[in-house]
């Protein structure tokens, strides 16, 4: 029996991994196709675009040099896939000669700090608040939290960001309104960290406030479903206190639908927050995306899309595995 269960679990994890691998190869292929169907010839674009007169021979030479004269399928796509597998994402158009992977790598820490921290705060506060609201449905916390959540949920985060800047930066002067470090200040490491954190405060608040409503609403719904379950009546009949009923029987069951939401949202951490990063001039992936779009920097965009695709597939994979651990009904 135990051996069978073990085998069942292994094959389930195997299935999940195979599915993830298939999805990833499709993401990579789509990423390749997407940028090939955009009109315009990269060689002509890079050598000066339509405005300048570059000889057809030079363009043709460049095309040959880059392998663009070869058929898309199978030559070019195989080249692309193989390069991608080796971590080679190509060179940026805008930042001449710079590796796409380097550009993304430089911007990633700022984005992970901003969105990761905001997700963490929104998740902890939102889930706890939502679970409590669902546990004490109709109570004061429930009504206030639900009202506030719906309002925040429907507020665009760039607008929230601007309001925060106006209040806490312009009017009160508590926090800096843009950037990542104070300009020109050459300072020691402790001060530097504090300066970084002060710059981080408002953008994190803007992103977190935009996300928290989602967690409150979903957590509340999950808990409301659990409290009406028969096993909660059993727990009460067994003479458990309200706290024991909540912690031992309600919490884990209510977390099941939340695990999916939480892990999937973690996948979006690397995408950055385009609008909030723009408001605060935050040098993250969101900012890089906007710059690359404006400059038609396709290799960079392609790299960002790939990163996003991979991280979402990985997040899905984690959600699948976490769900299997939490819910015994999924394991077989």
């Amino acid at each position, binding site marked *: 029996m135990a051996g069978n269960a073990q085998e069942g679990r292994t094959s389930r994890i195997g299935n999940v991994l195979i599915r993830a691998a298939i999805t990833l190869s499709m993401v990579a292929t789509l990423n390749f196709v997407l940028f090939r169907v955009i009109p315009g010839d990269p060689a002509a674009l890079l050598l000066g675009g339509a405005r300048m007169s570059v000889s057809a021979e030079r363009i043709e030479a460049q095309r040959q040099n880059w392998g663009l004269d070869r058929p898309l399928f199978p030559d070019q796509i195989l080249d692309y896939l193989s390069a991608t597998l080796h971590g080679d994402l190509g060179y940026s158009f805008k930042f001449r000669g710079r590796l796409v992977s380097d550009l993304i790598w430089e911007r990633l820490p700022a984005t992970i700090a901003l969105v990761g921290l905001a997700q963490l705060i929104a998740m902890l506060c939102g889930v706890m608040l939502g679970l409590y609201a669902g546990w004490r449905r109709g109570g004061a916390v429930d009504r206030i939290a639900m009202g506030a959540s719906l309002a925040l949920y429907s507020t665009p985060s760039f607008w929230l960001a601007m309001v925060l800047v106006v209040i806490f930066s312009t009017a009160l002067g508590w926090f800096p309104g843009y950037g990542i470090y104070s300009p020109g200040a050459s300072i020691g490491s402790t001060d530097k960290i504090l300066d970084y954190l002060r710059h981080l405060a408002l953008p994190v608040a803007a992103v977190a406030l935009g996300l928290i409503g989602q967690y409150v609403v979903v957590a509340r719904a999950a808990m409301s479903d659990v409290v009406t379950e*028969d*096993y909660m*009546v059993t727990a*009460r*009949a*067994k*003479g458990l206190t309200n706290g024991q009923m909540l912690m031992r029987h309600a919490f884990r069951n209510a977390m*099941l639908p939340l695990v999916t939401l939480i892990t999937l949202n973690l996948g979006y951490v690397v995408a950055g927050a385009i609008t909030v990063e723009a408001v605060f001039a935050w040098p993250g992936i969101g900012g890089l995306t906007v710059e690359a779009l404006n400059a038609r920097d396709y290799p960079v965009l392609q790299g960002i899309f790939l990163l996003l695709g991979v991280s979402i597939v990985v997040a899905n994979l984690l959600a699948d595995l976490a769900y299997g651990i939490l819910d*015994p*009904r999924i394991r077989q």
Partner: protein
Amino acid sequence: MTNLSQDKASLLEVDGLSVEYRLKGVSLRAIDRVSFALQAGEAVGLVGESGSGKTTTAMAIAGLLSPNARVSGGQVRYRGNLLSIDNDAAMRPHRWTETSVVFQGAMNALNPVHRIIKQIAEPCILKLGMSRAEATARAREVLELVGIPTDRGTAYPHELSGGMRQRVMIAMALACRPSIIIGDEPTTALDVITQAQILKLLGKLRSQLNLALILITHDLSVVAESCDRVMIMYAGRIVEDGTVAEIFAKPKHPYTRLLIESIPNPASGIRIIRPIPGDPPNLMNRPSGCAFHPRCPSATGVCTTEVPSLEKFGWGRVACHLHRSSQEGRVAVHA
């Protein structure tokens, strides 16, 4: 002496118990002056239609009334001690150690994310202060009592069949050695064969452990198989109370008689089931007098005006104007 008189006292005494539910500002009387006593080791069936108050009665005894319920009169004593049945916190120590409940449809009554042995052991740890090892040992004991191999303890509820889950539920109810077990339609969701096995198991455990059993059901045939005594409820009141043998042989109340006649009996060769005419009473708008009079084939004028009280009659009790107290020397009129 005190001990002796205590032993003679009933295990459970319910005296004039009335419970009301508050629904959208309206008070709804679910049970009305319910009185009965339960002896140690006795099996009583509580029978009635949906809304007759049988579940409310049982949940009140177990101290599991919902928050919108209010005890508007009467009292419940356990071994002579008054219980504050409408006080959630005050009832908590009594739950599961004195009265435990076997709920219907054990699929949903068991927590899907915990192994069954953990769910059985849980109240032993939390309520009896056992160590984890002691509680697990106790859980194995009760699993054996209900006929589940102890190595199945590591299973999750979804890995067991309906009958097995109901056995787990019974094992769980036994864990803290209660003296009363309330079965709330414990066999309703099961097929006939499993149903018979579960009833047999409950009967065996009752005599083995000297358990008092309150069996809530709408199925008189279930009561016939597994109870000593049966109480028939209608519109929140007990209308008849007697031994199973007596009630099946000579039902006094017309409602009881019609209930028995509506049981399909394959042995008799009659294929037509006779349903009771009319609709179950509306508790929002209770009929005057005897609540059963609009459906009663033998109703007379007095039935529409006067509420019949539950009086001793023969070996049992009945609330019907057709069967006035025998102490008054009147002969029962059977219509």
